[in-house]
C-alpha cells in the first residue's frame, strides 16, 4: 500500500460530484421544467411560409401598370452541403467564386442548420437551367418569390416601389419576417396591407435537415396564401405619359385632379426614373446611383417640394377679400406700376383696377390693398390675420390633406404665434407681413396642395381630398375621399374670380396658352429663386363650366409662369379634353418638348 492510497477518495468525490450535478440538472430538465415539452411539438412541425402574389395595379382606364414576375431565391443549409463543383455552380449562377465563398461564410455565421438565402432573385431563365443541375449540389434548395414588373416607365413616384422589410418594420408589425417584401413608397406603401395579401402556411413534418417527411395531418392545418387585392389607380396612363414627356429635361411637377371627385389624373415629379430599376438584384446598386444623382430623381417634388406659390396665390386673397367684404365686385385700387408702394407692380396695365382686372393683370398693388383691408377690418391685425388664415387653411393649404399619398408634406402656413415670436406681440401688422398678399413670404405649398386649390376654384368652393386609388378589389376606398369639403366662401365670389382667370388665359395668354374651343381658366405665377432662374408656375382648370380637370404645373428655372408652366398646362388640358393637340398649337408642343432647362448654357 502506498502513501497516496487515500487520494482515491478525492477521485471518488470528483465522480460523485459530477454525477450529482447531472442528476440535479436532469431532474430540473425532465421533471420540474415543462417548457421543453411544449417545444417538442413545435419542432417536428415546420411551418413553411407560402408567399402570396402581390395585388396588381391598373390605371383608371383598366390598363395594367404593375404586375408580378416570378423570381427564385437559392437557399443554403450549410450543414447539408457536401463537396461540389464550384466552377459549375458559379457559372450556373453567374457569380464569382469570392462571392460564393463570402455567401457561404455568411450563411454559416447565421446558422449551420437553418436555411438562409444565398442568392436572391434568380431570373426564371437562369432558374430553368439551374433546376436541371441542382441535384448535384447537396444542401441547396430554391424557393419562389414574386417581384414587381412594370408595363411602362411612367408614374414611378405615384406607384412607389417594393423593398425588403427593415428591422423597424418587423418591430412594428409582426406580420413581417426578415427577407419579406414591403411597399416602401407610393401606392405600394399606402396600400401595403391590401396589396400584400396574406401569407399562408404549410405544415410539414420535417427533420433537422429540413428534409420533408410528409405533410402534417394531410394538410388539414395548412392555411393557403391569400393573393393581394388588385387596385385601380385614378391615374390616366396616357395623360401621365404625355405629361412626363413634356417634362423631359426639366425639373418640376404636375398634379392634375378631376375636380368633381378629387381623383388624381396625373402625378409627375421630374426628373423621374424607371421603376423597373428598383426591382430585383440590381435594386441596391441602382438605388444608390439614383440617390447620388444631383437632379434628385428620387425626390418626390409633387409631395415634398414646398415653396411660396407667388402670384398663383392671388385668387385666394381676392376670394377672401370678397367674402369678408373687405372689397366688393366694384372696388377699385390705383396701380402706379413700378412706382407703387409698398409693393411695386411688375406688369404694365391700366389703372385703377377692379378685382377681375387685378386677377387678369396680376396686379400687386390691388392685392396688397385687399390684404390690408382684410386685416384692417378687425380690431387688431392679429385677429384679422387669424380670419385670413382660417380661410386659406380651408383650401387645404398648410394642411395634411390626409390623402393616400405616402410621405406628403404639410407645407407652411404661418401662425400668429410665429409672427409674435419674430416681431413681438402687437408689433406687426398687414404691412409687416405684406408679402403674404402676393403669395410670398412664409408660405410653403406643395404641388399637390396647389392642384387641390385649383380644384376648389373649379368646383366654386369645395373639394374632395385628392387621392390616387379609385377602386380596390373586394374592398372600398376610404370614406374620407367621398366626403365633400366646403370652403366657406360664397359661390358668386368664385364666379367673379374665375372671370379674371379666364380673361388671363383668353386675353393675355392667347398666343401660347389659349386652347381652341375650350375655355381654360388659370393664373400664372413666378417663384423667386435665389439660386438661379426663377420658377415658373401655373394653376388652372378647364373647361370653365363643368370642369373636367384642375391642375398645377411647376417648372423649376422656368422664369415666368407664362413661359413654360402655362403652355405646358394648356397642352396637358388639351390632350386630356380633346385627345390631341390642334394643328396650330403643334409649334408650342414642340417648343416645350425641346426646351432643356437642365442645361445651364441653354437660352431660357
Amino acid at each position: 500500500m502506498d502513501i497516496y492510497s487515500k487520494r482515491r477518495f478525492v477521485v471518488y468525490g470528483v465522480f460523485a460530484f459530477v454525477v450529482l450535478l447531472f442528476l440535479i440538472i436532469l431532474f430540473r430538465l425532465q421533471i420540474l421544467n415543462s417548457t421543453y415539452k411544449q417545444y417538442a411539438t413545435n419542432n417536428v412541425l415546420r411551418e413553411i411560409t407560402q408567399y402570396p402574389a402581390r395585388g396588381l395595379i391598373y390605371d383608371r382606364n383598366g390598363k395594367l401598370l404593375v404586375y408580378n414576375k416570378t423570381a427564385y431565391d437559392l437557399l443554403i443549409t450549410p450543414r447539408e452541403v457536401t463537396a461540389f463543383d464550384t466552377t459549375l455552380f458559379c457559372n450556373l449562377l453567374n457569380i464569382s467564386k469570392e462571392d460564393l465563398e463570402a455567401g457561404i461564410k455568411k450563411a454559416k455565421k447565421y446558422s449551420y442548420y437553418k436555411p438562409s438565402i444565398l442568392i436572391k432573385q434568380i431570373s426564371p431563365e437562369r432558374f430553368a437551367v439551374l433546376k436541371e443541375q441542382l441535384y448535384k449540389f447537396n444542401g441547396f434548395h430554391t424557393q419562389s418569390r414574386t417581384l414587381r414588373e412594370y408595363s411602362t416607365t411612367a408614374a414611378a413616384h405615384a406607384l412607389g416601389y417594393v423593398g425588403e422589410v427593415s428591422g423597424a418594420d418587423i418591430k412594428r408589425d409582426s406580420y413581417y419576417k426578415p427577407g419579406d417584401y414591403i411597399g416602401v413608397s407610393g401606392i405600394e406603401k399606402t396600400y401595403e396591407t391590401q396589396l400584400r395579401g396574406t401569407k399562408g402556411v404549410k405544415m410539414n413534418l420535417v427533420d433537422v435537415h429540413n428534409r420533408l417527411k410528409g405533410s402534417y395531418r394531410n394538410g388539414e392545418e395548412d392555411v393557403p396564401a391569400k393573393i393581394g387585392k388588385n387596385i385601380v389607380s385614378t391615374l390616366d396612363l396616357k395623360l401621365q405619359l404625355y405629361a412626363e414627356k413634356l417634362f423631359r429635361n426639366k425639373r418640376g411637377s404636375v398634379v392634375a385632379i378631376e375636380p368633381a371627385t378629387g381623383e388624381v389624373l396625373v402625378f409627375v415629379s421630374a426628373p423621374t426614373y424607371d421603376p423597373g430599376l428598383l426591382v430585383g438584384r440590381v435594386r441596391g446598386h441602382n438605388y444608390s446611383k439614383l440617390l447620388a444623382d444631383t437632379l434628385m430623381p428620387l425626390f418626390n417634388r409633387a409631395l415634398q417640394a414646398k415653396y411660396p406659390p407667388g402670384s398663383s396665390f392671388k385668387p385666394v386673397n381676392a376670394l377672401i377679400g370678397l367674402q369678408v367684404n373687405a372689397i366688393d365686385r366694384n372696388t377699385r385700387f390705383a396701380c402706379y406700376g413700378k412706382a407703387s408702394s409698398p409693393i411695386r407692380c411688375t406688369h404694365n396695365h391700366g389703372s385703377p383696377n377692379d378685382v377681375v382686372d387685378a386677377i387678369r393683370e396680376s396686379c400687386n398693388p390691388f392685392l396688397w390693398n385687399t390684404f390690408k383691408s382684410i386685416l384692417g377690418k378687425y380690431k387688431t391685425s392679429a385677429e384679422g390675420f387669424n380670419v385670413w388664415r382660417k380661410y386659406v387653411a380651408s383650401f387645404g393649404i398648410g394642411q395634411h390633406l390626409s390623402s393616400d399619398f405616402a410621405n406628403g408634406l404639410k407645407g407652411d402656413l404661418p401662425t400668429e404665434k410665429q409672427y409674435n415670436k419674430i416681431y413681438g406681440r402687437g408689433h406687426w401688422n398687414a404691412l409687416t407681413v405684406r408679402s403674404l398678399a402676393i403669395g410670398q413670404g412664409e408660405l410653403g405649398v406643395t404641388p399637390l396642395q396647389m392642384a387641390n386649390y385649383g380644384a376648389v376654384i373649379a368646383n366654386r368652393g369645395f373639394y374632395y381630398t385628392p387621392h390616387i386609388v379609385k377602386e380596390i378589389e373586394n374592398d372600398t376606398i376610404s370614406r374620407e375621399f367621398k366626403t365633400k369639403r366646403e370652403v366657406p366662401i360664397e359661390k358668386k365670389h368664385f364666379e367673379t374670380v374665375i372671370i379674371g382667370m379666364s380673361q388671363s388665359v383668353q386675353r393675355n395668354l392667347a398666343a401660347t396658352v389659349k386652347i381652341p374651343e375650350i375655355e381654360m381658366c388659370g393664373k400664372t405665377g413666378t417663384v423667386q429663386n435665389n439660386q438661379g432662374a426663377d420658377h415658373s408656375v401655373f394653376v388652372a382648370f378647364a373647361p370653365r363650366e363643368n370642369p373636367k380637370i384642375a391642375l398645377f404645373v411647376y417648372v423649376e428655372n422656368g422664369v415666368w409662369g407664362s413661359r413654360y408652366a402655362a403652355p405646358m398646362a394648356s397642352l396637358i388640358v388639351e390632350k386630356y379634353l380633346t385627345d390631341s393637340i390642334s394643328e396650330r398649337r403643334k409649334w408650342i408642343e414642340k417648343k416645350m418638348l425641346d426646351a432643356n432647362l437642365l442645361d445651364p448654357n441653354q437660352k431660357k
Partner: protein
Amino acid sequence: MPKRNNLWANIDWVTVLLFFALVFMGWLNIYAAVYNEHYQSIFDTTQRYGKQLIWIGAALTIGLIILLIDTNFYVFFSYIIYGFLLFLLILVLFIGKDINGARSWFAIGSFGFQPSEFMKFATALVLARYMSSYGFKIHNPKSLATIAAIIFTPVLFIFLQNDTGSALVYFSFVLVLYREGLSGVVLFFGTLVAILFVLALLVPNLVLYIVLLAIALLAFFIVNTKLIQFTRVLGAYLISILALFLLNFLMKKEYPLAGIVMAGVLLGSVIVLLVSWRNRIKNYSLIALVLLGSILFTLSVDYAFNNFLESHQQARINELLGIESDPLGAGYNVNQSKIAIGSGGAFGKGYLKGTQTKFDFVPEQSTDFIFCTVGEEWGFLGTSVVIGLFLFLLMRLIWLAERQRSSFSRIYGYSVAVILFFHFTVNIGMTIGLMPVIGIPLPFFSYGGSSLWSFTTLLFIFIRLDASRFDQL
C-alpha cells in the same frame, strides 16, 4: 492461491456485467434513434442498429482475445503498441478521410478506423509502464518531462487532425498523476485555469481584473496579518493604477479603463514581486506571481478566442456561456437535445415513441447525442439508471485498481476509469447543455465500431490485468 488456469474465476464479473448492460442498452437506444417504419427488422445490417450488432459481436471477440493473451504481453509490448499507434496517428494526417472538418479516420471501404480512439489505451499502457518502473519519482523533473511527452505527443497529433474532443480526453490523465502523488497544487492550478478560462470570456474584463485584484488582496491579508506590509502592497497596486490613469489623462491618450486597470495591476504585481522577493517574503511573491499569471492568462484567452477560433467555434462557446442566443444556430444541437431530454419527463414517452429523435431533430443522435434518446423515451428514470450504471462502473474500476498489487495494473486501472469518466462527463454534460459541444462518444453506448472496440480494448485489458492480480508481486 488462484492460478492462471483459474482465469475465469478471477475475472471480475460485476464489471463484465456492467459492460454488457451498457452495450445492450446502447444498442436498444441506437435502434430507437434511427427507428424507421421502413426498416423494422432490428437485424437489418443496412441500418445503424444492424451494423452496431455486428460491431458488438466483433467487440466481444476482441474482449475474448484480450482475456486469452498473457498479461506480460501488455507490459512488454506497451511501447511498441504506443509507437505503432503514434505512427498511425501521423499517417492519418496524410491519407485520412476528411469528415466534418476533422481528418482522423482511415477509410477502408465503408469501414472507418480512428487511430486516436485506440491511442488512449496505448497511452495508458505506456504511462503505467513508465510510472511503475523501478525508482520512479513523480516530482523528479525528468519524470515530469517524460510523462508530459508521453501524454502530449498524441495530443499534438490529434489536435493537428482537428479533432479537439479526442485530444482533450488526454487531460484527464492529470487525475491519475494526482493519485500517484502529483502535488495537489497541480489540481488546484488546473481548476483555476479552467475557471479563469470561462470567466475571461463571460465577465467584462474590467470586472474580472478588479475581482482578481480583490481576491489577491484578501490572500495578501490572510497570509500576513501585519497591517504595515499589507498597506504597502495595497499602496503599490493603487498607486500603480492611479499613476497610469493620470498618465493617460495628462498625455491625452484614450486607453480604455479596463486596459489601464489591467496595466496597473500588472505593474503593481511586478513591484510587489520584486520587493517581496528581495525581502524574502515568499508568500507575497507567490500571490503576486499567481495574480500576474492569471491576468496574463485571461489576456491570452481573449486573444486566442478572437484570433484563433473560427466564428462557428466562437459561437459554440458563446452559446454555452449564454452570451449569444440563436436557437436554430450554434445552440441548435444543445437546444434540440435539451428539448428531447426535457420532453421525456419522469418516465419517458416509451420505447420507440420518441418524436424528437424520430424526426432527426437531434443531430448525431445515434453517436454523440445518444443520451437524448434515453432521456426522451425513458425519462428521468432512464437517465438516472444510465448515470447510475456509469457511476457504479467507475467506482468499481477505482476499487479494482486499488486492490492491485502491481502499480502497473493500478495506474492502468486508474487510467481506464478517468478516460471513461472524461467521456461520460463531457458527453452527457454536452447533451444537457453543461459542456461545449465537442463531439466525443458516450462509452459503450454511442454508435460506431471504432469507439466501441477501443473502449472494449481499454476495459478488457484491465479486466485481464485484474484477473491475474495474484500473479505479480
